[in-house]
């Protein structure tokens, strides 16, 4: 086993959070190539009790999911998410960046502040860039912690994403008549929320 592979192994092993290649390079001696070591290491841990997984830009060691039953003791009690929170999370993940108005349009109901706060608190979502439309609404995007929690390499790996996209269900389809050609998005959103909110 190469020295660099040992180093990467030790660093990833010691950390509960994913570590990026840049961070690895930073911590390893000058001239090290953690990317290559990661490839070897990943192979080495295939099929083991602990595996090397990719999370967004980072890498992390995680126990194999099929052994979860052994970990009663380590299980962390997670607050049960409300249906509203789960749906809001899914909408943000699949439509990101998503504004509150977009979430409300899809669910057909107002999003309560608590729901968004809960997701922010879990650090599963965070604020993205503001949308360049009138009112410059904030957008929400999912975080690396979200990816880590659900064992996703990237948001592109969300289950069913491709099918949804192919079916046009991720399109931002304006309500007919709500937006006349040339009208901007902000007004369009307003038109839609009129429909379902009062």
């Amino acid at each position: 086993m190469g020295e660099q592979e040992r180093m990467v192994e030790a660093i990833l092993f010691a950390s509960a959070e994913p570590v990026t290649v840049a961070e690895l390079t930073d911590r390893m001696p000058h001239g090290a190539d953690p990317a290559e070591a990661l490839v070897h290491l990943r192979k080495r841990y295939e099929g083991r009790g602990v595996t090397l997984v990719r999370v967004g830009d980072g890498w992390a060691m995680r126990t194999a999911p099929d052994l979860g039953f052994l970990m009663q003791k380590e299980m962390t009690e997670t607050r049960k998410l409300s249906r509203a929170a789960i749906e809001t999370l899914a909408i943000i993940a699949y439509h990101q960046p998503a504004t509150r108005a977009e979430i409300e349009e899809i669910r057909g109901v107002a999003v309560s502040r608590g729901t968004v706060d809960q997701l922010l608190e879990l650090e599963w979502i965070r604020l993205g860039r503001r949308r360049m439309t009138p009112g410059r609404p904030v957008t929400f995007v999912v975080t690396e912690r979200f990816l880590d929690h659900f064992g996703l390499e990237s948001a592109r790996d969300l289950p069913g994403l491709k099918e949804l996209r192919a079916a046009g269900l991720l399109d931002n389809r304006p309500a007919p008549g709500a937006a006349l050609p040339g009208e901007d998005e902000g007004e369009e959103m307003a038109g839609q929320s009129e429909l379902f909110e009062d």
Partner: protein
Amino acid sequence: MADPTPFDDQTPSVSDRLAAEALIIDVDGFEGPLDLLLMLSRTQKVDLRRISVLQLAEQYLAFVDRAKQLRIELAADYLVMAAWLAFLKSRLLLPPDPDEEGPSGEELAAHLAFQLERLEAMRDVAARLMARDQLGRDFFARGLTEDVTRIRRVHYTATLLDLMQAYARIRTHDEFRPYAFDRQHVFTMEQALERMRGLIGYAGGWTDLMGYLPDGWAHDPVRRRSATAATFAASLELAKQGQIEIRQADTFAAITIRRKSSDRS
């Protein structure tokens, strides 16, 4: 809920009625009118793309009617949706009016079907997401993490230029700056204060302020102006500090000062 009054033109079966009531009791469980519509659409048991929006609108309106009969208060947004669906229904039933602007009933219906399909799709993927293996439930991170100790080292730097500039600054006893204006004929208030503090003790009674001008500053008009201003400003400062008293008998008369007697301070 006692009378089995028929709510539609046909008498519902007992099971229908129970189902309807269950639906109504459940109203709190709905996440808004769109959610309710989605639930109602399931009774049609068809692909959402082929759903009959007209039929759905009727089901929804019937639901709202039943809720009214059972005196269940529906949130306002359910009523707004009912009004909109009634409007949609009329558009779908009546032949299109060529003069009327706006989207056709079909377009509106298609969009509603799209919204329902999208909501269902999001429900579905949300469920799939939650069914995934989750960190802390199915797979786990390292239990005993080793923190990275951060060793902070501060490296101070200074160049020879910094050193020379610093020395130049001190030698000119002022902030080093490439540009400096002439201050040769300026007597500062600080200098005046210093001077007056030393002298005030010796002056007994009222003394002319002009007597406090430093030697060599009383004749050249430029120097005299600066020294006078500084001395006057300094006297105000000393008066403010309660160390002296100032007096001027008349406009443009000589200003005289004297030390404030200590028993009064």
